[in-house]
């Protein structure tokens, strides 16, 4: 059965499909989790492990047992002291290197550190080769691995493994011919990653220090990050944030900077290359990025973009004259644009929507959200709730492996949708809709607006308040009308004179559903004055 890993405050917890959280997972020694808004936890699934970066002071892995480990152990720091020991049958001149390994209970290698420093060459003649003064790891490791050259060689081969983290010497007389035929695989310490993505069987991430460099691990070896696995994402030094976000699509890895979008293509270290997709579009927030069905959705300064095989398109600029909500993102009337860097995106796979959490104008918390309907390319919202303050958005696998979009709150709960139109147990949902100003295409003609008929799906109870605004476009609201929601059709009072009319539709009762199928509005033209 699946589960959900969350960072709650400065702890990691597993939430099962019944919604029951575990106790705080035990973090490795000297590891802590930040709760700063700039250190939002970022996750990737790699094999049977979840990798978490940015909030911890070192990248971590978590498995289904709740075991938390460092992604890469620190490499040995001291130089092995090699010597010849009596006995044995080895002859030649050899060098030795040490690594640290983390293994599971079955002996599978989960992580291996970078190589420690190389020993001096040691000649042996029908003797044992001993490596002493081996380093002990400050991390919780399972063993040390010793590599050595063939006689006079420079290529390292696996030699012997020293179980545990207490012994500092080992010796063996294994012949060159007895060494593994395969040389030591490339290793390297994982950098302090701020972003993470799984793509092409590798982990990819942006470095907190080398902010313009994209780093990646070896194929299927999440702990091995050779320094050469590095791609510069220009312009180098052009800003203080560097790589802001990653967007792994099927055949391309998107890399967002403040004002650029790049993609990496290729299949191996020999042909990975970065290509500039566009200037003047970047990614504001890693958390706004969602890749769904090979389309990456993300927030930039002037709106929400979609990037697919057809290119990049600003979704909030509308399509064929519809769905234009650019003002949401380019004015200060709706949202606090200073907080775009903490915006959080989510795909609702049930209703097929891209949901984006934002801070209301003048606010610093993610207390609003808007939705982009992927089927109709339309925008809805801004929505809000009085029950809690959203902080994060997570698609949670529930029982029977159903994927449900949920919101994580500042109060420590995951929130799922329910059919009942109530937030929490008793908080009303404030349904508040403004229609267009109707003019019957004759905005300069005075009209008499007659009795509107409202069509709804009948509910067991409830009343919708329908407030007309009559007159010119900027005229005030008129006397509200009540729509009985238990009826499927209701004729309301005559509205009166005006060139325009629009309606505000509002309902704010806990547990009350509202389904409006439409309205009819008869009118009579009076004339032009």
């Amino acid at each position, binding site marked *: 059965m699946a*589960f*959900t890993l969350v960072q*709650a405050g400065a702890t990691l917890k597993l939430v099962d499909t019944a919604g029951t959280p575990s106790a705080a997972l035990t973090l490795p020694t000297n590891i802590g989790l930040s709760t700063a808004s700039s250190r939002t936890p970022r996750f990737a699934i790699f094999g049977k492990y979840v990798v978490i970066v940015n909030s911890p002071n070192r990248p971590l892995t978590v498995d289904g047992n709740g075991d938390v480990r460092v992604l890469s152990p620190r490499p040995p720091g001291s130089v092995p002291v090699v010597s010849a020991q009596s006995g044995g049958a080895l002859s030649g001149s050899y060098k030795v290197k040490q690594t640290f390994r983390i293994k599971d209970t079955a002996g599978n290698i989960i992580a291996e550190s970078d190589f420690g420093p190389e020993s001096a060459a040691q000649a042996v003649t029908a003797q044992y080769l001993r490596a002493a003064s081996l380093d002990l790891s400050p991390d919780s490791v399972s063993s040390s691995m010793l590599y050595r050259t063939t006689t006079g060689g420079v290529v390292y081969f696996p030699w012997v493994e020293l179980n545990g983290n207490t012994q500092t010497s080992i010796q063996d007389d294994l012949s060159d011919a007895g060494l593994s035929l395969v040389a030591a695989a490339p290793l390297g310490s994982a950098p302090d990653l701020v972003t993470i993505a799984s793509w092409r069987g590798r982990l990819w991430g942006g470095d907190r220090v080398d902010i313009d460099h994209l780093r990646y691990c070896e194929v299927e070896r999440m702990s091995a990050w050779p320094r050469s696995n590095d791609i510069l994402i220009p312009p180098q030094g052009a800003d203080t944030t560097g790589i802001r976000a990653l967007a792994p699509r099927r055949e391309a890895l998107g890399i967002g900077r403040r004002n650029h979008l790049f993609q990496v293509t290729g299949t191996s270290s020999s042909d990975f290359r970065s290509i500039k997709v566009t200037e003047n579009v970047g990614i504001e927030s890693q958390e706004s990025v969602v890749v769904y069905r090979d389309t990456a959705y993300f927030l930039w300064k002037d709106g929400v973009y979609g990037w697919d095989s057809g290119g990049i398109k600003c979704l909030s600029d509308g399509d064929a004259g519809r769905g*234009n909500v650019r003002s949401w993102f380019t004015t200060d009337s709706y949202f606090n644009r200073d907080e775009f860097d903490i915006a959080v995106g989510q795909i609702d796979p049930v209703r097929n929507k891209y949901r984006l959490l934002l801070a209301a104008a003048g606010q610093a918390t993610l207390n609003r959200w808007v939705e982009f*309907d992927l089927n109709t390319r339309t925008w809805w919202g801004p929505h809000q709730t009085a029950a809690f303050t959203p902080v994060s958005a*997570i698609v949670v696998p529930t029982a029977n492996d159903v994927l449900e979009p949920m919101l*994580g709150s500042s109060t420590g709960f995951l929130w799922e949708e329910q059919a009942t139109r109530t937030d929490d147990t008793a908080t009303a949902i404030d349904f508040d809709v403004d229609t267009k100003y109707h003019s019957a295409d004759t905005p300069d003609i005075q009209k008499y607006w007659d009795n509107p008929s409202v069509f709804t799906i009948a509910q067991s109870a409830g009343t919708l308040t329908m407030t007309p605004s009559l007159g010119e476009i900027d005229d005030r609201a008129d006397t509200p009308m009540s729509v009985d929601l238990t009826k499927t059709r209701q004729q309301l009072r005559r509205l009166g004179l005006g060139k325009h009319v629009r309606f505000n539709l509002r309902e704010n009762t806990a547990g009350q559903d*509202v389904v409006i199928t439409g309205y009819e509005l*008869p009118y009579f033209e009076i004339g032009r004055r």
Partner: protein
Amino acid sequence: MAGKLNLFNLGSLGVNVDKSALHLEDGELSKAQNAIRDGIGQDGALRKRPGLVKYSSDVTGSILGGIGVPLALLTGGTVTRTTYWARQAKAIGLGDTQGWWSSTTGFTTSATQILSGTPGNPRTEELSDGSTPFSGLSTGMPGAAVVFQNRLYYAGTHTQGTDRPPIRIFDGTVDWELTRVPHNGVLTTNSTVIFSMLLVGSTIYVSTKDGTSGDGASRTGRVFALDPSSGALTQLGQDFPDGYQPYALAWHMGRLWAGTMYRSGGADAAGTISWIRPNIDTDWTLDRTMSQGRGCTFLISFEGQLYAGNWTGTSGTTGVVEQRDSVGAWTVSLSVGSLGNNSAFMHAVEFLGDLYCSLYNQTASVSTVRKFDGSTWTTALTTGDSKPLTTMWVNAAVIYAGGGGDNVTANLWTSTDGTSWTDRSANLTGTNMCGASLVGVLATVT
């Protein structure tokens, strides 16, 4: 002029805040707070959004981020861990088809008996010198069962001599045969029994006892690498020398180590300890002949050193745990004298950073658990029940030690700290049964 607006697309066009008021289309909205197009059943209509209700209990602390993980959760309240422990009749001969105990409570309550059911009956064998069965010594170490990818691989029952020993798989629901141990072409016999299995990575190493039963010559054994997916068995190195049977297996220094029992022609000899590097070496390298006894009963890697326990016999009545340091020097780490014949260090596990091994003094009928913290040996448990602790395992932060043996019914002791032990023997349902060294724990998510 009269007219009528018919507006039935309120839930179709969504919000448009960029057009002027005059240019909005019918159906477009300038605000849709908590209003949605409901594509699930009410498409076209305008509907209040669904409510939001707490899914989780309080996780305590702002949920700053998270990820849904499509992997098995192996901890927490929705996970049931069922321990399967093979049983054998306490009467001479053991090896009978007495099925398993199963427990979902770690034997804190009465265990369930599985007789000739699912999983199928296991096969065990009591060691003997030809006339006297050795109390409790049966199967091997760590034992003839492992759990790999939440499936129990175990030695199934068979007719000795006639059939080749099967390796079976039980996934918690279905039980099936994976493979059988190949015929021994050197001895031209079938293996007698599977002594031990050891999981290393995604390979299961399997050791066998081959050759004649009883006390005759031509008794040896082999070690195989088992591919748990295909069932392919590949012999590692050559057959062990006559009389030497690979009873104990361990993985240490990147090598597979085998400790042997010895019995041939009515004579005893000290057990040996050999290693091989699978896929590199073509034969076993003898690393140590133990200083005492007639066999190596356990091998375990602990803090970078290899530890081996012995079985006493006429060739030595002192119980020893020998230690191989990281540069290959063997010394005696623990010595317990005057044990007499047929006593043994029986099993060993690592628990909470310490090494634990069980010791049975057959002469005095005293069973103890010894603890080693890396520098000092202490006695962690003296059972007082005169029953051998043939098997030890660790599950869910609890250490288990139990067994019984020839004409000795089962016992089971558990501890959460290695210091305070609880006797769970009363929960071992059934009479005249003892436990064998086949144990596996399967997790089920409810």
